């Protein structure tokens, strides 16, 4: 390539076309390392570390500070760049959501929620506030909890619906443990939110649980 990258262009095109993770992991990792790691002699060591510890691109992009320290990665630009690419990807997936009816294309919605929270290490609870056409007004993290629980305040969600003039919401939270099965506490909490919102005639369209390799929908499970 004219500007000196060692990354073979045709291979990247192949990756970009495939839209899947079947693309060569080593090749993708080499691209990021080459792009973001400025010290040549660190690159080889970094590549060995990454290939030994990360299963795919998404996994790498979600590297935590702790993992960085354990692996002894001192290249600050590399770590920050991972965060930047992750944020860029997140904004892309959010912008890819349909501007109109959000539940019309569930696949895109799940893609987005997976991007946001499937690999988070603690639970977070999101509320997607929707307008009359079920279009997205705002996606907001309402609470971050610990590894297996999050506090949710129906009063706060109701108040935000008023502020944003939302007429429906979609709830979502992640299970870092990997299971997508709703717990009893999840079901009770959902009912509490539903009851609170029904007072101001706001519908809960669905509640999704997002896990690393799977997801579930309260609506599909008949829990709403």
């Amino acid at each position, binding site marked *: *390539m*004219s*500007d*000196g*990258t060692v*990354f073979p*262009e045709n291979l*990247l095109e192949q*990756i*970009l076309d495939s839209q*899947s*993770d079947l*693309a060569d992991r080593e090749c*993708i990792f080499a691209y990021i390392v080459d*792009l*973001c790691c*400025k010290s040549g002699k660190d690159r080889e060591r970094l590549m060995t570390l990454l290939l030994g510890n990360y*299963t*795919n*691109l*998404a*996994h790498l*992009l*979600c590297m935590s500070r*702790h993992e960085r320290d354990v692996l002894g990665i001192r290249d*600050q*630009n590399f*770590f*920050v760049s991972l*965060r*930047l*690419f*992750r*944020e*860029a*990807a*997140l*904004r*892309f*997936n959010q*912008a*890819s959501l349909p501007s109109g009816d959000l539940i019309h294309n569930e696949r895109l919605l799940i*893609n*987005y929620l*997976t*991007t946001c929270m*499937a*690999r988070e*290490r603690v639970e977070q609870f999101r509320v997607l506030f929707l307008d009359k056409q079920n279009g997205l007004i705002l996606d907001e993290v309402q609470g971050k909890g610990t*590894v*297996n629980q999050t506090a949710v305040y129906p009063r706060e969600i109701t108040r935000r619906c008023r502020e944003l003039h939302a007429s429906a919401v979609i709830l979502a939270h992640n299970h*870092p*443990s*990997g*299971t997508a099965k709703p717990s009893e506490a999840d079901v009770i909490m959902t009912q509490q939110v539903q009851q609170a919102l029904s007072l101001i005639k706001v519908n809960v369209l669905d509640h999704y649980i997002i*896990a*690393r*390799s*799977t*997801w579930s929908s309260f609506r599909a499970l008949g829990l709403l």
Partner: protein
Amino acid sequence: MRQKILDHGTGALADYELLEMLLFNVIPRRDTKPLAKSLLAHFGSWLSICQASKRELEDCHLGAKTIVMLQFIRQCAASLAMTDTHNPFCFADWERLLVYADRYTQGDVATGTRVIYVNNRNELLLDHFLTDESDIVSLHQQIAELALDVNATALILVYIAPRRPANVIAQHVLGLKHALRPLSIEVYDALLVGENWKKSLHQEGLLGEDE
């Protein structure tokens, strides 16, 4: 700017700031803010920039490296949107733990203690060698800090070729169990292993009074 991101995350960045910083990787030692702003103005949105074809980007006089970087964002997005198929090692039952523990007694068996940290599905998060066991307080601190760092909800201790008798070790394990309780971290068991033998303190009833 980098420090700001490390401290406050990337969520607060304006689109042009995010683009500016990404561009810095391909166009170093230059102010990339004007380019970031003009690209956003030209394409109109984050989505359009990321979806732009190679030709459309070339028409903006961008170099090959920049174009590849911009298109790479889509690859990141696709990868993040996909559910992971990676299955970590799971200590589903006692048998699995025994099979796993075989690794400690292969080859030269050196005395030492390991801590296996697991999540609430009993999946392996970290298998860590304790370096200094002389001081109980700092030992508890070391284990508690690591458990929090890897978001563990439980752990299993493995004493390899222990020199102390089982009932003495059991007292230590009970002490740790007690110390970790306020953090909701469980100590499932302590496994004593040596060449051709394995013993569970839990199964021996030595941790029994705590159940």
